[in-house]
């Protein structure tokens, strides 16, 4: 037996095994991520079912022109950007504060319970969150009852029927759902701080508040920056926007609840204007790509490292 020969043939066998292990994932990417990318061509075509994806006449940027002329598109774009920006401002500091507070809790058991229960909403289906919202914010519901018995309002507040409330409502739901979850990563960073630093601070006479300000907060500063930048990158797709728009939007709050994701769905799958909806999606993808790249570039400037 020639040892070298055995080694090479086994090397090839192993290479084959590795490639086969990767194959299912590769096929999934090719079929469900890359194949649809070719379908984007219909954004520039006059699509109809008979001609198929690659038939149909080229129409250039006609769909985009129509989109920019559509009043509902303007409304959807405005609502998307407004909701995402409000959520960004309102929700990015809350997990930081919550993590700092959790870290100060004196009883380990209570801390664990608080963490478990406040993280739970992150794992709930948006259908459940929407149902809970409707139950709790009903004009005859528990929140209105509480507000009235405390004398804070005269009549019931129409949270879901009043367009003026929708953006605040969306941001509040995000706060409720994601604050506990968002705190985990910061809490992990605080827990990783070397205990000697605390002892040194204590010797120097620093109290609890000064310790939080001078040790805990600086320890999570870079994590805060990274997450902030990532959130800016996803501004236009804005996580919960579609869910809230689709499940909590109604004829009364439509002026403020209608977002781009819903606009695409409306035109595409409901009205079957496939080519037009693809153009809307492409516009959305491009903006989000630009935002992501800009965010990544900024992160590089600040941290000296790529996020991805």
């Amino acid at each position, binding site marked *: 037996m020639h040892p070298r020969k055995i080694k090479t043939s086994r090397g090839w066998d192993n290479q084959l095994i590795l490639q086969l292990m*990767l194959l299912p994932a590769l096929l999934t*990417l090719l079929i469900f991520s890359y194949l*649809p990318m070719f379908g984007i061509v219909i954004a520039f075509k006059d699509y109809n079912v008979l001609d198929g994806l690659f038939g149909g006449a080229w129409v250039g940027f006609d769909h985009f022109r129509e989109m920019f002329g559509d009043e509902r598109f303007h409304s959807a774009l405005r609502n998307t950007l407004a909701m995402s920006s409000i959520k960004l401002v309102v929700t990015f500091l809350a997990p930081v504060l919550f993590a700092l507070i959790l870290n100060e809790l*004196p009883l380990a058991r209570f801390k664990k319970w608080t963490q478990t229960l406040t993280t739970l909403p992150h794992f709930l289906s948006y259908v*459940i969150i929407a149902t809970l919202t409707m139950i709790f914010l009903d004009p005859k519901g528990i929140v209105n009852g509480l507000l009235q018995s405390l004398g804070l309002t005269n009549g019931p507040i129409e949270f879901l029927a009043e367009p003026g409330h929708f953006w605040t409502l969306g941001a509040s739901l995000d706060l409720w759902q994601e*604050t506990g979850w968002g705190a985990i990563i910061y809490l992990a960073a605080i827990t990783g701080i070397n205990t000697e630093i605390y002892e040194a601070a204590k010797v120097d006479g620093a109290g609890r508040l000064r310790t939080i300000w001078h040790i805990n907060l600086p320890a999570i500063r870079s994590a805060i920056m990274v997450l902030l930048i990532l959130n800016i990158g996803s501004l236009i797709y804005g996580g919960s926007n579609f869910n809230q728009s689709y499940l909590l939007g109604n004829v009364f709050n439509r002026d403020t609840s209608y977002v781009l994701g819903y606009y695409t*769905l409306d035109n595409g799958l409901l009205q079957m204007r496939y080519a037009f909806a693809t153009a809307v999606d492409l516009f959305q993808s491009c903006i989000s790509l630009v935002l992501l790249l800009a965010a990544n570039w900024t992160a590089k400037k600040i941290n000296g490292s790529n996020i991805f």
Partner: protein
Amino acid sequence: MNAIKLTWEDKAVNAAAVLISLVLLVVAAYPLYYVLINSLNDGADAASGHIYFYPRKFSLENYSMVFKQSYLITGLGMSVARTIVGTAAAVLVTAMAAYALTKEKLRFKKLYLAMAIITMYFSGGLIPLYFVLNELHLLNNFLVYVLPSLFTFFHCLLFMAFFRELPKELYESAYIDGANDLYIFFKIVIPLSMPVVATISLFVGVNHWNDYFVPSFFISRESLQTLPVILIRLLSLSEAQQQIQQYLGNHQSKVTMESLRYATLFVSILPITLLYPLVQRFFVKGMLVGSIKA
């Protein structure tokens, strides 16, 4: 107990932290508790409202009604089926790919990684995906729940970060014994990777359990609908009213459609509430590794 003397500042910080946490705890957990107590209350009695702390007239009839509705049973069964099949398949595919991608000797590794990274930045969008699903006859097919979500790059990165932490000696001695990578993956790597397997399974499983988009827009056959879609129908009360009348007929029952809705809600919340605390201890660790790498 007098080893550490608390200053007034310590006491104030403790008190403030406990107080704020208590408020947040109640705000986070009470809605779920409210659903529970209302689902355990007699429907007709609950209609008069004001059930805030415990069931006023305890009854399990709402739940027995849930399990008598054939459309709810079908939805529940389909949700369970897609969650189990979809999660097992996705975790296997993603973990195998992650293992291969951590091997230096893997050919075309850079190409594969680049292909995966691009999908984080750009996608074809909804309509082209719809066409692909249509061409592959996946619309109105159970497999539409499973196949498109077999691989997620973010989860792959978490697996890769964990696999890289495993001691190299494990592989080397197995190679010398003549084991191949498939054997090493299943017999050595996976048994040692339970924290990350549990974490990713929870993430993927929750996505499957909670998803309403795929069954709403890619499935029209009633027998393939999942629980979230049925909850959407119960969401709007007037629609639910019609549904319930259709199913209850003239049958005299103390179950109202609102109480039925509470019971259905709780059935769909329960699995996560039970599983999550068990997996939580793993993923704090798993996420930490992932976040350090990222």
